[in-house]
């Protein structure tokens, strides 16, 4: 007798839909983040607008032929207008004029857009698919597989894809846009795409999450499709765009050379104009026929190249962090300085007989960085007095005092202390502390707190006492330090956002099971060169109410090095 599954198919479908929903929303968030970065680059937006215009051109031609343009006159292949002399200059009837055979140039221009799109998209998809496949096999398996694949791609790197495409076009004259694009994609995919994606894949394979996936028993298929491929996609998108540029220019060139094929092409228009007009010198050439297709070709390639640069902004991890840093800087703009300047004392004016010399004592503004650590400690118990630590039953244990001791041992200064929470800041000393040191000290203090309370909880568990939870949020930011020359007037203003971020992060961290520690992206960046001292856990984007864009938050799960030894007496 078979054991019936507890879950009905309905439940399974619901669970599957739920997972799918999560996955979709994650993807949506990623796309939205990318779009936010993409939108900021005016050149990339220009490229996108150009592509949209070309798309409209591709759609417009069949519609115009069906509705406004009589096909006898405006057909791109056989049209002839008996009402005007050919070749005709631009007029209201023929916006770009006609060529020597009496065909409307605008109609030909629009008709050539669709095959160009087909060619470009085929080339791009082939490049990306082949590149990703070979690169992930090479990066995942390594060793002999990797070296043989990279030898082959070295070989294909030597073949100039555009020239090869022209050779193929010249040999097989009836080849359509899709096979031609396929051929370009084959050469570019095995060549440059594999080289670029493989070196990116090798970097990914060294990441800790791959290790984690291996340790937790993930097989080859799982790691390749769940971890390796998704990280290659942005870079592959970039390569797709450049493939479109190369393929379209080469395709135009095949037709320009006269290896004319079945479909209408911008290069064909130029070739026909030269061939049928018997104009050997450029001065006799028809510019209204030559310039539009050549310009369309150039602009089409330009559009995809510009978009590729926009894609590169978020495809490259280095530029992404740079972007986040840039968007953060918006908070620290000049308007924040104004209240400080307004509250500065009026300059004293000394009057002499000769003239009035104002003794302006200008405060010197310096910007320093500091890191705030917001911590909250609670005893978690089912009893009524679960919240107030100091008033709880085991008031004999002063957890807050212990925590403060640990913080000051790491060089932190207490700012606000409440019954169960406190705010400490690091780096705002008399001397200048680099932002890196401040962040390092704060993060070490946070991990020390967590380690301490883990130990405390072990002891308390033996005594059947309720557990102590600790939630820590760390955020870094700049503050303005103003001091006048006479050193009479001194003030420093921290940006509210930083403190608020620390508080918010602390709130989030308290929701984590058994408490935890979250750091903001600025702190994470400040830690850059010393990050190896900590174990960074999960990370994800978070939106704070006061911020326009999302920023990443990171979880710190432990540390590898202790810089201060605090004795537990």
């Amino acid at each position, binding site marked *: 007798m078979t054991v019936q599954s507890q879950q009905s198919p309905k439940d399974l479908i619901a669970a599957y839909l739920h997972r799918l929903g999560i996955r979709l929303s994650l993807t949506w968030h990623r796309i939205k983040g990318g779009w936010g970065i993409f939108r900021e680059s005016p*050149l990339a937006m220009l490229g996108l607008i150009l592509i949209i215009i070309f798309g409209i051109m591709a759609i417009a031609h069949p519609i115009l032929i069906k509705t406004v343009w009589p096909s006898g006159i405006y057909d791109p292949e056989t049209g002839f207008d008996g009402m005007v002399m050919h070749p005709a200059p631009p007029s209201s009837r023929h916006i770009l004029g006609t060529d020597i055979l009496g065909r409307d140039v605008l109609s030909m221009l629009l008709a050539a857009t669709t095959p160009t799109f087909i060619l470009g998209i085929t080339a791009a998809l082939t490049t990306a698919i082949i590149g990703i496949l070979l690169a992930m096999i090479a990066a995942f398996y390594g060793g002999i597989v990797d070296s043989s694949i990279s030898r082959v791609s*070295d070989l294909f790197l030597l*073949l100039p894809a555009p020239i090869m495409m022209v050779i193929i076009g010249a040999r097989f004259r009836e080849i359509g846009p899709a096979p031609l694009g396929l051929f370009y994609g084959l050469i570019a995919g095995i060549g440059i795409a594999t080289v670029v994606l493989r*070196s990116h894949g090798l970097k990914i394979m060294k990441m800790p999450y791959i290790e984690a996936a291996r340790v937790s028993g993930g097989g080859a298929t799982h790691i390749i499709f769940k971890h390796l491929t998704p990280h290659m996609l942005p870079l592959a998108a970039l390569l797709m765009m450049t493939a479109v540029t190369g393929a379209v220019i080469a395709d135009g060139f095949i037709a320009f050379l006269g290896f004319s094929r079945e479909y209408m092409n911008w290069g064909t228009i130029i070739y026909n104009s030269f061939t049928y007009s018997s104009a050997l010198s450029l001065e006799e050439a028809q510019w209204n026929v030559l310039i539009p297709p050549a310009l369309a070709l150039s602009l089409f390639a330009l559009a995809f190249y510009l978009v590729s640069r926009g894609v590169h902004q978020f495809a490259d991890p280095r530029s992404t962090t740079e972007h986040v840093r840039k968007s953060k800087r918006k908070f620290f703009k000049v308007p924040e300085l104004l209240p400080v300047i307004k509250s500065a004392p009026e300059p004293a004016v000394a009057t002499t007989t000769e003239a009035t010399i104002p003794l302006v004592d200008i405060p010197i503004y310096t910007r320093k960085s500091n890191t705030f650590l917001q911590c909250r400690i609670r005893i978690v118990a089912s009893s009524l007095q679960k919240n107030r630590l100091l008033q709880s039953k085991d008031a004999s244990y002063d957890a807050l005092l212990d925590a403060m001791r640990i913080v000051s041992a790491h060089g932190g200064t207490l700012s606000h202390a409440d019954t169960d929470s406190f705010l400490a800041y690091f780096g705002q000393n008399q001397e200048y502390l680099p932002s890196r040191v401040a962040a390092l000290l704060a993060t070490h203090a946070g991990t020390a707190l967590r380690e301490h309370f883990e130990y405390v909880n072990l002891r308390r568990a033996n005594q059947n006492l309720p557990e102590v939870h600790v939630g820590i949020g760390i955020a870094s930011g700049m503050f303005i330090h103003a001091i006048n020359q006479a050193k009479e007037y001194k003030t420093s203003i921290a940006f509210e956002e930083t403190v608020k971020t620390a508080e918010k992060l602390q709130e989030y961290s308290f929701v984590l099971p058994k408490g935890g520690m979250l750091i903001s992206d600025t702190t994470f960046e400040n830690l850059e060169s010393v990050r190896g001292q900590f174990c960074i856990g999960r990370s994800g984007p978070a939106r704070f109410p006061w911020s326009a864009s999302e920023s990443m938050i990171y979880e710190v799960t432990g540390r590898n090095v202790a810089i201060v030894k605090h004795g537990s007496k």
Partner: protein
Amino acid sequence: MVGFFTRKALWGALIIFLFVSMMFFLIKVIVPHDFVTQFTLLLGPAEREALREELGLNLPLWEQYLLWMKQFFTGRLGQSFYGYEVFEMLKATLPLTVLVFFIGAGLAFMIGIWLGKFTAWRGPGLLTSTTTLTSIAFYTAFPPLLVWLLTLVFAKRLNLFRSVIGTRTWSHLDGEIWEETTLTAQSVSWYIVLSFLVALLIVVLVGYLARRFFRRRIPFLLSALLFLLIAFAIWHAFGFRPHALDILNRAALPILAFTLLAFGETMLIMRTTMTDTLKEEYVKFARAKGIPDTEVRDRHAARNAIMPVVSRVVIAIPFLLTGVVIIEDALGFPGVGTLLWDSLYQQDMPVVMVILLLVGLLAIFARILLDIFYAYIDPRIRFADSDAREFTE
């Protein structure tokens, strides 16, 4: 060190071997039948068989392959379908292409480096965006369009250079100066390239001596002037000054077009790497020390940023050569490019394949030289995985 060079040499030999083999099979795939059925329609069956035997086409595929390899490695490039030696055809066209490629690539490299350095140093702004957009526009321009505009502006309107459109061969160069000499366009082109190399060597040597013994750096403009002067003096001393100038005048349009087409890529890569370099601590430190900005830019930042650019440009050599080839055809400049397209019109595959082979070989040798140069200046590379160079832009 020795191990590194052995590894590199073995890699190069393997790639050359594979590339030549691939070319052989490509010919077999692309040419529909063999030479005899395609081009000797008037011969009878017996004569065809005789010809096949003479050309070695009746042998099994692997013997043909061995024959091809033997021919290639003994330096015989074979015959075109029309009976000419491919070697002779190359001898007539290669010098002009070499002239255009080296001068154009050199100019494009220098302009690209300078513009990239400049825009990265300035940071984002209107001027930077305009420069970037212009470079990308030139980089993605349809080459014939570029060539027409240049011809119209420089040859027709300004009358600066000679328009070369429509002249497919230079067997007889017109003009008085070519009548009483034995010099040909090809030999003069080789001489120009050689004299430029010599001049470059002298300028580098002078710069080195000035740094070593007088502790002075020669400004860039002065070195450029010195370079031109030396080249000019060589031409004058060997008595081919007017001829060299005439050739350069004729080659000016393709050189200009190629420079405009090629500088964009260098500029974009240089800008990216330079932006990264400017974030480094040593640049901040140099500025904090009070070193003048131009010096920090040129000596601290740009020098370190230039290395990835060089490796990217060397990898892009096949694509750069594509640019030359396309421009030559659009202008009708009688170089290798025109030969390539003309052979394509006539389905003359041996010539096409030899030209492709040449492109590949040039690229391989450039990469090997680059690797050796890298290993020479940066000892870390000798011990690390040499393939792990940065390819991301």
